[in-house]
């Protein structure tokens, strides 16, 4: 299972980091009665003073985790549902911004908030749009287990508050990927191409990769970029790609378009002259990388065919 490989990567990284740094703490805010897989794996190893899990109390847990981080303990705050994070995010993001302002650059806040990218698929609430409001917050949205490993371990060792989004479906394949070290804010060129740039992150990447392989069958050579972090954003890889392909498609994972809109605004501002067609935000009604990818491919093909007629 691809999905469990991602989860596995997170658990292994946490065990490694918590073993390495005895101060590191884990807070779980769970929606159900029982602990999730992370807390279940960590609690027997590290005990109840380092692994704290509670049902509900999303606001209180967020505040407590921030307190723990301010006290100097690298702290991972884990939500098993995007919706409980979203209810607590108002308080948490407001306070993080205040703390940032209060202490300027002097204080370290090693807090990593780990959330699923979306809530239950029938509600489709995505966190990207909300997170974007928090200046200075690192937003990691990897698509592969191997990148998750590297990012999570860096974030936990860092001194800045961060959110780590976990794709909720169809991870980009990393069966053969070797562990790669990369700086925070560096995107990955998943597949090089000449005809169009597909920008993606988190669970959108698997669909974009699927779309690219279906387009290849039609003779369209699409480039796929996996952003890995939404903030900071790897503008240079993005702009280099646009200079080559002159066409951009943003594979937004769900209907939460705020980040995709901001991204297209950025592209218009920085690369307007390079564009042969408007930036297109891809949406899909389906779940699953294959079906999503097929919809994306159809849309990309239609746009490219139409614009070449003009």
């Amino acid at each position, binding site marked *: 299972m691809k999905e469990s490989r991602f989860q596995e990567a997170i658990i292994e990284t946490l065990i490694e980091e918590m073993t390495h740094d005895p101060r590191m703490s884990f807070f779980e805010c769970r929606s159900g009665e029982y602990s999730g897989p992370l807390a279940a794996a960590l609690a027997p190893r590290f005990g109840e003073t380092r692994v704290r899990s*509670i049902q509900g109390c999303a*606001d*209180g847990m967020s*505040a*407590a985790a921030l*307190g723990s981080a301010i006290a100097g303990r690298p702290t991972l705050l884990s939500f098993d549902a995007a919706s409980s994070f979203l209810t607590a995010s108002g308080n948490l993001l407001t*306070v993080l911004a*205040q703390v940032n302002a209060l202490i300027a650059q002097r204080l370290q806040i090693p807090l990593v908030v780990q959330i699923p990218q979306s809530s239950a698929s029938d509600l489709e609430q995505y966190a990207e749009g909300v997170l974007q409001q928090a200046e200075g917050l690192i937003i990691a949205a990897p698509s592969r287990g191997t990148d998750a490993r590297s990012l999570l371990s860096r974030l936990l060792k860092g001194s800045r508050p961060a959110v780590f989004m976990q794709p909720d479906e169809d991870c980009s394949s990393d069966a053969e990927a070797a562990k790669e070290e990369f700086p925070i804010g560096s995107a990955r060129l998943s597949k090089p191409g000449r005809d169009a740039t597909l920008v993606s992150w988190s669970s959108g990447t698997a669909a974009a990769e699927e779309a690219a392989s279906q387009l290849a069958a039609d003779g369209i050579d699409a480039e796929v970029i996996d952003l890995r972090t939404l903030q900071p954003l790897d503008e240079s890889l993005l702009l280099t790609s646009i200079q080559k392909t002159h066409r951009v498609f943003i594979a937004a994972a769900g209907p939460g378009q705020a980040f995709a809109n901001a991204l297209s605004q950025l592209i218009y501002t920085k690369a307007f002259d390079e564009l042969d067609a408007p930036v297109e935000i891809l949406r899909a009604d389906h779940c699953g990388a294959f079906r999503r990818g097929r919809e994306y491919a159809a849309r990309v093909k239609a746009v490219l065919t139409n614009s070449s007629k003009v």
Partner: protein
Amino acid sequence: MDQELIAKLYRNMLLIRRFEEELAEAVPAKPARSRASHKGHEALAVGAASVLEESDLVISAHGGLGIFIARCASLQEALSAFLGKPAGTHTFFSPERKFFTGLPEAFSLPLSAGLAAAQPRSKDKTVAVCFFTEKALTSGLFHEALILGSLWRLPLVFVLEHEDEEAERDGEEPGLAALAEAFGFSVESIDGRDIFAVRAAVHSAATRARETGSAALVAAYIGGAAADSRSGTPQDPVSSLAAKLDGLHMREIRERIEGEVDREIEKVRGLLTAGGKHCGDAGR
């Protein structure tokens, strides 16, 4: 009674009172002044600070200046923090001094729980003490903080500064006490203007928290709307301690302290008229 201790307590209370009066006059802007007008709380700030260990964490949910001075800072430092230097912020937030403030009031309560949870479990445990006002009582965050404090058995002391005269007359606030006790908090209601009552209550709450890891709530009445805490009235914590000093034949010491405080305040006035220009460096 230990004369030296009483003299020190009086000095700190008077220093805070005079400093805040000076600031309120010099900084007329309302938002800034609200932080400096905690008149009547001096006994609580100085009393609590005098029985806490240096390693203990103090969280001022309401952004009170008094507890910052009582806890750790010189007036110059308090002034530079108040005037927003360095870093252009109005804050006394200072992890190095184990002093945390400036965040939304109710949020500070569960934050304190997290700070307490982060302390190493050693023999001489660190206690987190959070000062807040009744404004936070209606927030869900207060209740979540009670849950975390009791569930995790945290070395945590909540100190409520309230102006609820009715609760004071009845001896305690029954609803609040029952609520906190239901969560396993020990609760004590005191007159927060009586520095000796404050010392006794905070000391026993902190000791219990330190030794058994059980959380506590101290509900301290500080006078209705600060009206009866005006200088000179018998309810005013500063004047009443001054009277106590006289009763203990310490009038000379009292006058000497007042002279010293005058000179300190004079310096602050000088800095304020200089536009606080020199304070920036003092805070670094």
